[in-house]
């Protein structure tokens, strides 16, 4: 039986209504579930993990294990929500930390107060739970560096795909880019971001999961955060380089652990992101989104009608149409 025949003669209304509604509900359920799963953990992974560990040693920022006991709770909340403001106000502790960590300021990540509290709750739970961060993803593939210093000054060791233990073996490696490509270049960075130029180790282009104001519109995925201001968010060149080389986010790790970025590629990306900082972050343009989806649906309908026109005298159901059941 053809599909149109099925719809016309066999499909029962309750079934046709129930199926889409049912699947929509299941989908929504999954969605809300993942949001609820653990707000603190999610926020931590999204916003903190790039620079911090819980019991895994220093990275760009300090190890946060036991930080709840170390600092005053209110101060922590304030610091998490608006570090830039506190630095500007000249908070003593903040200044001390800044100095301790190579003058890389903690960026304002747009954490709300409630979010900050749940993050801190998560850190507290996590600190008590384990001494070694076995459950949280390893932030750095190599033997964890002793200080952020070492990490920043020797990034090359991290870019090697065949680090001991963690990564088994890079199955195939392309020759490294030529030296002429080595000077950080905005255009190359943009091309890498857009995927017009591929990463040497085969990593996925940024635009797959991220969007930014430079590209705008529907240009980019929404899995990861907006990257327009990523440069300032991670404290400029040094912070961003560390993040891009170690890709400590769980989602990015899965993609890049076997296909790490090269130093030169990171430099190009940095050059690109340094420029986009001057733009304003724009939320996803809903009108554009609706138009896009609408065009998709309209295109489907047009193709469907076209198909029926082109093959309009094809053989459709004969017997079923006769008996009507």
């Amino acid at each position, binding site marked *: 039986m*053809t599909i149109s025949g099925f719809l016309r003669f066999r499909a029962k209304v309750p079934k046709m209504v129930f199926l889409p509604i049912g699947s929509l509900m299941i989908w929504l359920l999954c969605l809300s579930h993942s949001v609820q799963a653990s707000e603190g953990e999610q926020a931590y992974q999204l916003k903190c993990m790039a620079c911090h560990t819980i019991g895994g040693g220093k990275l760009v920022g300090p190890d946060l294990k036991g930080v709840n006991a170390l600092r005053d709770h209110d101060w922590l909340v304030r610091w998490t929500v608006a570090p830039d403001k506190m630095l500007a106000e000249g908070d003593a502790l903040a200044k001390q930390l800044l100095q301790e960590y190579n003058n890389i300021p903690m960026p304002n990540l747009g954490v709300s107060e409630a979010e900050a509290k749940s993050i801190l709750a998560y850190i507290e739970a996590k600190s008590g739970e384990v001494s070694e961060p076995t459950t949280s993803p390893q932030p750095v593939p190599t033997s964890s560096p002793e200080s952020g210093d070492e990490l920043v000054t020797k990034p090359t060791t991290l870019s090697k795909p065949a680090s001991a233990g963690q990564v088994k073996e890079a199955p195939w490696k392309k020759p490294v880019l030529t030296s002429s490509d080595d000077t950080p270049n905005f255009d190359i960075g943009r091309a890498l971001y857009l995927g017009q130029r591929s990463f040497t180790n085969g990593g996925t282009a940024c635009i797959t999961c991220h969007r930014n104001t430079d590209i705008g519109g529907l240009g980019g995925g929404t899995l990861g955060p907006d990257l327009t201001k990523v440069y300032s968010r991670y404290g400029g060149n040094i912070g961003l380089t560390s993040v891009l080389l170690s890709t400590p986010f769980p989602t990015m790790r899965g993609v890049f652990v076997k296909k790490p970025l090269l130093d030169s590629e990171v430099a190009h990306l940095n050059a690109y992101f340094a420029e986009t900082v001057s733009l304003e972050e724009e939320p996803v343009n809903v009108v554009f989104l609706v138009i896009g989806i609408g065009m998709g649906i309209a295109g489907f309908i047009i193709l469907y009608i076209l198909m029926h026109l082109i093959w309009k005298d094809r*053989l459709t159901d*004969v017997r079923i149409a*006769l008996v009507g059941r």
Partner: protein
Amino acid sequence: MDVRAQVSMMFHLDKCIGCHTCSVACKNIWTDRQGTEYMWWNNVETKPGTGYPTKWEDQEKYKGGWEPKEQTIKLRATDKFRGLANIFHQPHLPTIDDYYEPWTYKYSDLFDAPAGDDQPTARPISLITGENMDINAGPNWDDDLSGSTVYANNDPNLENLSDGEKQALFEIERLVFFYLPRICNHCLNPACVASCPSGALYKRGEDGIVLLDQNVCRAWRFCVSACPYKKTYFNWKTGKSEKCILCFPRLETGQPPACFHSCVGRIRYLGVVLYDADKIEEYASAPKEDLVRLQREMILDPSDPEVIKQAEKNGVHFSVIESAKKSPVYKFVKEWGMALPLHPEYRTLPMLFYIPPLLPVLGHVENGVYNVDAEGYFGSLDKARVPMQYLANLFTAGNEEQVRTVLEKLLAVRMYKRSEQVDDIKPSLVEDMLKKTGLTPETCEEIYRLTSLPTFDERFVIPPMHREYAAELMAGDPYLFKAEAGVGGFKDRPDRGL
């Protein structure tokens, strides 16, 4: 003149009792394998009715056969461009729903059911999916007018009938139906052969049987769409199409095809005819009204010395020509002009002919005598329950005159025998009828004998098939195929299924 031989067939519809023995005989021999359950190379339909597959005669939908185009004809379903464009998804294929979903019963239920108050029943299960199913169609679902409000009412042959005629056809007192057994017509201008992109179908040179080479078929299924009689089928298990092979292995050993052999009503006749292959294109492209006449013209007289000379030049064995002289099909079709092809308007020049049913004529009782012919010689024909136009739609592309001629002949022979044996009809009346139909008492006698009292050998005049010559022609050494599997000619097992 390009004289060729064709094993040709004739079914006498007045004799068919609709017993389906022919279908079962065929199924048991050829289509009892997985993948072929739904196929009925031989099927028997009730007319009026929609047949199998449902409404196969509606070529607006099925796109079978040829249609005229300029001076010649072209396939309805496909051509070179459309064939290529649609090769992976051909839009005119019937689905299994249009045939029927084959089923069996779960007989084990009858034995395994726990003891209870009710009789156990065997549930129907699909032969395709193996799951429980509801039966709502079958190969002869509208048999004997069952479900006629749906099926018989939608018979495509009711076209051009007046509303009155249509209504009368379904009035309970006048209700009428007859049977139409169908097999592949082994056409002279086969649409199936013309449509196949792989060249898997061919018409055998020596006897005109249309065959489908299982080793060449690539499952494009254009033959399924192109055959207007829907007599090629797709085997879903082997992924190849299949069709009636006119039991050629039986013919080659001197036996009639199984459906012919088993026919209870003895309605089937088989014999070779000679025809002029040069005329195929011209005659197949002729106007609709001329098709029956021209096809008859194409069949040649096997006693004509010129024909014999040309035939022998073409490599037709003299024993085949001898056989053609005795062919009952030649007599019914050409000599007596009584048998008609089914749906000649499809222009495939089908070589299976039918004698249309004369019964039932509306009779009346007069002085205790059942009378069918009170008003004039053939007046009763107009009172026949089956409207003439209906038969014309089936057998003569709508030309009523040609059907009437045949029915008049049938009636004349009947009256002749009645006057001879019962002696209740005025001889002058019979004489007039004979004069009008052009029959003589001798031919009447001959027609009567071949219709009612034919022996097995008179019904089936099977020509010697001379496989040794064919083998020699193709392979050189006739002993090459000795002791090999005969059917299908597989040297290896086919790759898929079976």
